[in-house]
Every structure is written in structure tokens, then in C-alpha cells.
């Protein structure tokens, strides 16, 4: 059962949104509680008692005269609840999906000025996506690394390998879809998770994601084709591990 909250100060828009959601709830019994509508962010925040991926928020960005009230509220919600689903419902002129996605991990942006049909479709899609997320385990096995300079959090099973860079103490993390840098020493990373293995002077790998080893070239291959070097002495251990 997901809880839906709406922040919208214009009465007409409130009604429009409510109508679509209530229709959806009627068609899909017991998927969500009746949506709670608020015109004021403070009141909405007060009404939030639970937290988790089953909390769904539809927020307008401009409330009365303040242009970024909705965004500020999103920040506050995120602080209390890192897993809640936030969807912005706003006018096209304030469309900044990339920015907001980065800032508050918003799920989606829906344009208020869309014709009803399209608008409803997108709202329904957002609710369905939230329902989907319910199924997945919330406590993910994450590799967390925190220092005074850096904060990194990545699902462990996505990690392929870490690489040293030309800059002192700068390390590059490679996953199958990302590559990013942060400040740490190789030793600190090894300490952060016992499953990580130092296979070469410049590389630390996540052995779980190795698919093959080329002993001649001294190269390790990961599932998506990426590769890194391995020291001769370490090949033995990793071959054993793969068996």
C-alpha cells in the first residue's frame, strides 16, 4: 500500500490530479490509500509519519509567490527519507529534469500543460513505477565509503574494479555503466570491504564480477567486456576463486 501526497496550491490543478489518482485507485484495489492534498508545504511535512519507498509525492514547484518552494520541500523530504519517490508536476518553463534528478533524485517530471489524456498517462506511470519498486529489497548491499573529502555509495554488485589515476590519491571506480573518481588510497578501499581484492599494483577488483582470465596477456575480463590488468602472482588465487 503506497501513500500518496500532493502539493499544489491551485484549486483546479488539485482537483485534476486528485481525480486521476482516485480513478486509478478504484481500478487497482488496495494499491494505495486515498491521496492527501496540501496547498502548504509545512502542512504536508507535518502529515508525513512514515518513510520508505512506499511514500509517493507529487509536488508542484512554484507555490504561491515562491518559485522554488516545491524543490525546498523535496530537499526536506529527502533528508528524512532517502527512499521516497518524488515526482514533480510543473509547468514547462520550470522544466529542469536533469538538475532536479541530481539534486533530489526525483523520479520524473510531468508537465502540467499537457492535454488531459497524456497527463493522466504519465501520472499513472509514476504510480505504477512506485508500486514496482515496492517489490525490490530496500536494504541494498552497498559499498559505502566516506571521508572528509568524499562520499561514495554504490550497490556492491555493480562494482567492477577500482583503478589508480595519475593524480596522487585519486581513485577511479568503474561499474558497468559508470566511471567516476574520488579521493582515497587503495589501502583505504581494501579496508572498506573484505570482498575486494587487489589484483595488481594499480587495480582492485570485485572478484564476483570477473568472467574470465587471460593468463597469457595477464588481463581480467568482466561481464560487459571491460578489462583490467592482473599481476602474475595473483592469477592463481583468482583462477581458484572462479572455479
Amino acid at each position, binding site marked *: 500500500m503506497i501513500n500518496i501526497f500532493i502539493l499544489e496550491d491551485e484549486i483546479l490543478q488539485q482537483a485534476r490530479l486528485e481525480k486521476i489518482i482516485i480513478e486509478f485507485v478504484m481500478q487497482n484495489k488496495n494499491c494505495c490509500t486515498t491521496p492527501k492534498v496540501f496547498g502548504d508545504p509545512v502542512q504536508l511535512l507535518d502529515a508525513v509519519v512514515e518513510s520508505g519507498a512506499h511514500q509517493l509525492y507529487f509536488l508542484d514547484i512554484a507555490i504561491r509567490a515562491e518559485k522554488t518552494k516545491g524543490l525546498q520541500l523535496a530537499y526536506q523530504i529527502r533528508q528524512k527519507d532517502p527512499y521516497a519517490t518524488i515526482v514533480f508536476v510543473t509547468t*514547462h518553463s520550470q*522544466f*529542469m*529534469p*536533469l*538538475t532536479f534528478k*541530481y*539534486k533530489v533524485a526525483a523520479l520524473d517530471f510531468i508537465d502540467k*500543460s499537457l492535454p488531459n489524456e497524456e497527463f493522466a498517462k504519465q501520472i499513472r506511470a509514476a504510480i505504477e513505477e512506485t508500486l514496482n519498486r515496492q517489490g525490490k529489497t530496500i536494504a541494498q548491499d552497498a559499498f559505502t565509503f566516506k571521508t572528509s*573529502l568524499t562520499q561514495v555509495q554504490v550497490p556492491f554488485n555493480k562494482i567492477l574494479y577500482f583503478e589508480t589515476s*595519475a*593524480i596522487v590519491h585519486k581513485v577511479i571506480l*568503474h561499474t*558497468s*555503466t*559508470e*566511471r*567516476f*573518481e*574520488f*579521493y582515497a588510497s587503495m589501502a583505504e578501499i581494501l579496508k572498506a570491504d573484505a570482498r575486494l581484492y587487489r589484483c595488481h599494483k594499480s587495480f582492485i577488483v570485485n572478484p564476483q564480477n570477473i568472467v574470465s582470465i587471460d593468463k597469457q596477456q595477464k588481463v581480467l575480463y568482466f561481464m*560487459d*567486456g*571491460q*578489462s583490467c590488468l592482473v599481476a602474475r602472482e595473483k592469477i592463481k588465487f583468482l583462477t581458484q576463486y572462479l572455479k
Partner: protein
Amino acid sequence: MEQIFKELTFLVHVIIVLLIYQQISGNKFRWYQWSCLILICGILSSFMPVLGTVICLFFLLVYSIWFKQTDNLRLAFFYGLYPNVVASLFSRVLTDYLLPLFGLYHVGFNGDERVHFFIELLVFPLYFYLTKFIKINFSLLKQGLKKLYLNQFIVVMNLSMCSYLAILEALRLMRNYIPQAILLQERLVGIYTIIFLVMLVYLNTTLVEKLKEEIVYQKEQQLQELITYSQHVEDLYNEIKYFRHDYLNILTSIHTGLENRDLIAIQTVYDQVLTKTKEQFTDEKYHIANLVKITNPALKSVIATKLLAAQSQNIKLRVEIDAQIGLVKLDILDLINVISILLDNALEEARLTKERFLVLAIFEVNNKEVIIVENSTRKAKVDLTNLFVRGYSTKGAKRGYGLVKLRKILDNYPNVLIKTKSSGHIFSQIIEIN
């Protein structure tokens, strides 16, 4: 007594060489490195004076090449040889030509050690003021050398410095076998001093000229971009002017419709005219107007030019700029280069895709300034392993220098991190500035 002066002379010689090295290469020694080096040299000079001078000669060469890891070997050689040559030339010119004018002699190894010490003390001040007088600009020289403008000339200079030192040393070693050795040394010093100073002046003048040319060129580019940008802004303004004109007419029509309670007339106006207007104003042209929030005019116009180029190639654009963003933590030239490279790359790839979109977002969060450039890609996922490696490119052979340059620029800023993502046919580059 003699011995003490000998050691002091050597000490001063070492200090001079290190100072000149710092000046020409920009690599500063820290206080502990200073003390270490002086101590070692001091010890060496007491026990093995000959070895001491040789080590002094080679130390800087080795240091430049090994420790400082400059990609450019020629430059490393230059940094290593230059201080030794300068110290040698100046002290010898003083010994052989200038001081004898005042009746002070220090001939070979039989001279007064105090005179020798006195000469060493004079070397650095003489060098410093002479170069100041002939207007050698060391900071520009350093910049120019690093930009590798006169790479080949540096090789010539290196060879000449090498030869000078080699011949000098040979003559010194063979002084007992070659009768004229000392005289030849003096001649060598005389000739080479002139050659060296000429080369130095040439180096300085040419490098300064080239740097100035580069600045002029960039200013011209900037001007061009500003012109493009203001042209664009003027076009937008004209459109708005026409709209305003039409708008007043439309208001009149609606007013009439209201007076006559003619709903159909009002409906017509809405359907025919106003919906068209909505389309017009949500047009991406106006996205570029978001650039208003960037305070730096040079940056603004560079981005505008690139985005306009994208638009003309039918690429869907989105520009997200959040509030007034200053972006002052980076040197403006570096910032412009970084954003240009990212946009160029994104454009090149987006052009070749079906979806053809490009997004630029600049905003601030948690005291971090963030720049994101996102574009559509042909492949669902791009291999990120060799992204910043020289010569690697998805565009064919002999390309792939943009991101290497980007990497080099950002390496100078320890507070900047790059994050790259590629999945679902979307490629993002995220630059975080702390």
C-alpha cells in the same frame, strides 16, 4: 682555512644551481628538500670533491626526468642542463674576464680560494639583474615552454649546452696533456656566453610573442561569439516585439467577443492564434535564453555559439541553468575549454543518433557546483575504460585528444571530480566542483 672556503664555495654553487632551476622550471623545492640536498652536497664535497661537481651536474637532469615526470623529455633535459650552464658561464666570465679588471685573480687551482668564494657569491645577483635588464620574462618563459611552442629549438639549445659542458669538462681533465687547455677554456667560455645569451633572448622573445598571439586569437574568438550571441538575443527580441503587437490586437478581439458574449468568437481566437503562440514560446530557441543566468560573458557566448550550432543541425536542446551561477573556482580559460570540449563531443555523437538530443545543466547543490552534459548515443552503452586516454576515439584514427586535454586541465584542480555514465542510449559527463 682554504678548505673551509672551498666548501663554502661549493655550497654556494649548489644553492645557486638550485635557485636557477626553480626559476626556470617552476618546480619549487620545499625546505626539507633544500636541507637534504645541501647536507648531501656538503658531505660529498668534503670527501670526494670531484665526484661532488659531477653529481651536481647530473642530479638536476635525473631529478627533472625521473621525479618530475614531465611528458616532455626535451624540456626535462633543458631544466636539468640550464642551471648548470648558467652557473658555469657566469662564474667563469667573472673569473676570467671581469674580476681581472679589478686585479683579482683566481687562476685554475692555484688561486686564492677567497676570491673563488667571492665570485660564486656574485654569480646569482649578476645573472638575476642581467636577465632583468634584458627583459627576460621568466614567468612567461615557463608558460611558453610548457606549451611546447619551440620544441625543436629546445633540442638545439640542449645539444649546445651539452657540448659546452662536455668540452669544458674534457679540457679540465686533460689540462695536463693539452698545453693551451686553460686558454681554450677561456675562449670557449667567451664564445659560448655570447651564443647562450643570444639563444636565451631568442627563446624569450619568440615565446612571449607566441603567447601574445594566442591571447589575441582568443579575444577575437570571444568577440565573434559575443556577436553571435547578441545577434541571437536581438532576433528573440524582435519576435517578442511582434508578439506584443499581435497580442494587443488579440486582446481587442477578445474584448469584442466578451462584450457580445460571443463564446464562439473567443473560442476561435484561442484555437487559431493562442495555441500557436504557446508552441512558439516553448520553442527551444528560448532555452538558450536561460544562459542569461550565467554571469561571465565569455562563457555565456561560447556556450551560446555551440548550442546555436546544435540547433541548426536539428538537435533537440535543453538548457537547465539554476539561478545565478558564478563558476569562479576555475580559471575562466580552463572553464571555457572544459565546457567547449564536453559540448563538442556531445554534439558530434548526438548528430549521428536517431534521437538527437543534448542537455546542458549547470547548478549548485551542497556547496558544490555541478556541470552536466548529456547526449543521446548510437550504442546503448559506450565503453568507458579508455575514455581519457590519448588517441582513443570512437570517431576514427588520429582523433581522441579532446578528453585528454580536458583531463589535463582538470588535473590541475584537486577539488574537481569527473563522473561519466553511459546506459540506455544516454551518455553523461558530470563535473563536480567542490
